[in-house]
């Protein structure tokens, strides 16, 4: 096949990509340089909209919350998924299939539904979590999980981890099963115990999977919206505000399309940067 023929076959996809992805992105970038009044485009204002970023406390708070979300997602679902999949991998194939399916179920639940379910679990009036704590004599630990600034973001991150954890298990399990069993057999002959095998064989050989999951988690964490919107709308106060909720409010509720475009461009730049880094690292391996 000549390169000209190859481009000919690629052309439809390129046109669709340009029309539905590239052009809208360029449009948003263009909007960010204009003043808007109630949805009607006004004067070209250059970088004026961008200059507001520095003094926008909500933007910086949201960016910080996104960073915390990324860190927590990397810390818990990935580590727990790695450990659990290593344990599971030693069971028989039937157990592995069933357990992996069970762990994966939360991943199949739309985040809006997950938000509603966990909203009920955390509800300060009739929530399951407080009920259980009361029932086992730990009523003093019961709280208004999503209503207090010091617990709201962490409580929501637990939900995020709940939906992501099963995905990590499935990816790691597949990767572990591709490791040559003779490596473990040789280690056993040398007297290595479970932890030593996990640390010196499993973890190093799962580096690429960990890298993929980590970068995927980071990108997902920047795009989070549904879960937060149905549970707290960024509150209480600004405690669970993230970039996506800030964009939504600025665009839909305030109607400040120019500044919403600026926030969108910043969010896009962050996600594209993470994506580029991930492609570069994965390709260099």
């Amino acid at each position, binding site marked *: 096949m000549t390169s000209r023929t190859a481009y000919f076959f690629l052309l439809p996809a390129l046109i669709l990509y340009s029309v539905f992805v590239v052009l809208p992105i360029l449009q948003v970038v263009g909007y960010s340089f204009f003043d808007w009044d109630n949805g009607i485009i006004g004067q070209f204002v250059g970088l004026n909209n961008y200059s507001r970023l520095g003094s926008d406390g909500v933007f910086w708070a949201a960016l910080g919350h996104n960073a915390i979300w990324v860190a927590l997602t990397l810390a818990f679902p990935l580590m727990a998924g790695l450990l659990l999949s290593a344990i599971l991998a030693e069971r028989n194939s039937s157990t592995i299939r069933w357990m992996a399916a069970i762990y994966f179920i939360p991943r199949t639940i739309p985040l809006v539904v997950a938000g509603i379910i966990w909203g009920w679990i955390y509800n300060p009036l009739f929530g399951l979590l407080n009920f259980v704590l009361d029932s086992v004599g730990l009523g003093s630990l019961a709280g*208004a999980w999503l209503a207090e600034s010091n617990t709201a973001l962490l409580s929501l991150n637990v939900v995020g981890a709940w939906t992501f954890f099963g995905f990590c298990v499935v990816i790691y399990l597949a990767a572990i099963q591709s490791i040559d069993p003779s490596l473990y057999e040789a280690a056993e002959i040398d007297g290595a115990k479970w932890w030593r095998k996990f640390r010196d064989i499993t973890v190093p050989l799962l580096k690429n999977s960990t890298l993929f999951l980590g970068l995927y988690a980071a990108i997902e964490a920047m795009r989070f919206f549904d879960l937060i919107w149905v549970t707290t709308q960024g*509150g209480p106060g600004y405690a669970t505000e993230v970039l996506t909720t800030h964009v939504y409010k600025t665009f839909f509720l305030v109607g400040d399309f120019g500044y919403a475009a600026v926030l969108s461009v910043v969010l896009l730049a962050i996600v594209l940067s993470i994506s580029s880094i991930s492609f570069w690292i994965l390709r260099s391996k």
Partner: protein
Amino acid sequence: MNKFAIRAITIVSTVTAVQAETVVTQWDQFSQSGISAAGPAMDELILTCAPAIDGASILRTIAPSIGIRDSYRLAVSAGKTPDLAYTWPAASVLAGYARVGALAPLDGYYEQYGWDHINDFYRGRNSYEGSLYGVPMEQDLMGVYYNKTLFAEHGISLPTTYAEFQAAAETFKSAGIVPVSFGNRGRWPATNTFSLILGLTAGKAAEEAVLFGDTPWTNDAFKLAAENFQAWANDGYFPRGFNGVGYDEANALFLSGNAAMTITGTWVLQDMIRGATDIDLGVFMLPPMVDGIEAGTMWGEGSQWQLSASASSETQDAAAAYLNCLLGDEAKQIWVQKANTVVIGTTPEELSEWGADPVVQEFFTAGLSTTENNFYDLHTTLPESVTQVLYPELQLLIGGETTADEFLNKMQTSWELAIANGERWRP
């Protein structure tokens, strides 16, 4: 899609046997349940008003109450507004749409149809630079829904002073009953409650001095109002974790008999009356919270009818005739009887004559007795940019995370920015 679903989305009323020449597209928020649960009444009124619009037809789309303002904003941006919309909030947002030329001026129709029942207060809230752009319909009031049985069981009379209200709340709290059911997860309920507290603490004149004058938010009267609201939260008047409780959940808590009172508006009357199967429901007005402040309550229209500037003159004429019918005597009666919705200008005597639910009569008899002293609804008076600061800052204030001074400083900063951007609305 079954017949019911199709009906729920769109209702086309064919007015004459022949095909209609003029179609008025209408967006409204009258659903079957929840806030503004007046959907069946709206359906009936479209049929009732058919003769008034002579050959035109109404193509109705129901938009969720919470989402309609966002949908309308996008429609304005895209130049695809419906001919007629019943959306919220009023005042400053309406003025914004008028400013960019999205809305048709309605002065001619006001004159043609003599909508004199819409008084100067409401006309002001629906005006921009001297012209009218909205037709308010529902009379919204804030009041205290209370459980008559719980009050009787604890020997509490209806509070006529703020001290009596506080004493009642303390009694219920001591008895392990939530004094005031309140849920602010959606962030807007606190805005209504604070509007009422502000009016009853600072008074109407002090509100106008800030909202329409040059007095800053950081004044003593506003500070006292913020402190009063925070004190309710600190003193345990509200259920645990109120910032994480939904508005509907708070209403359900009250209707289940687990709370003595809830403070909200007439917009939820329909649902309250339907849901009050386990309690004996009553209404009273919160007394003034400071000596020298006159009794009153928060007034508003919440939403208003508005006409698209891009609609043809025939369509605008048909829509105005239809609106005139919706505000007429026959329609007012249907609104009251089928939807517990009271059209502006309806008198307590008419409510009695039409056999309105006793709770509706109780609410409006009390609320309409202070017509000269109505307070402003911040939610529908402030520009959206300020409202979006008010929401989280009120959560922080009543959550005990900021002081009244910090709250008012944040409001003043956002207020100054809105004024600088030309977003402030004045009647």
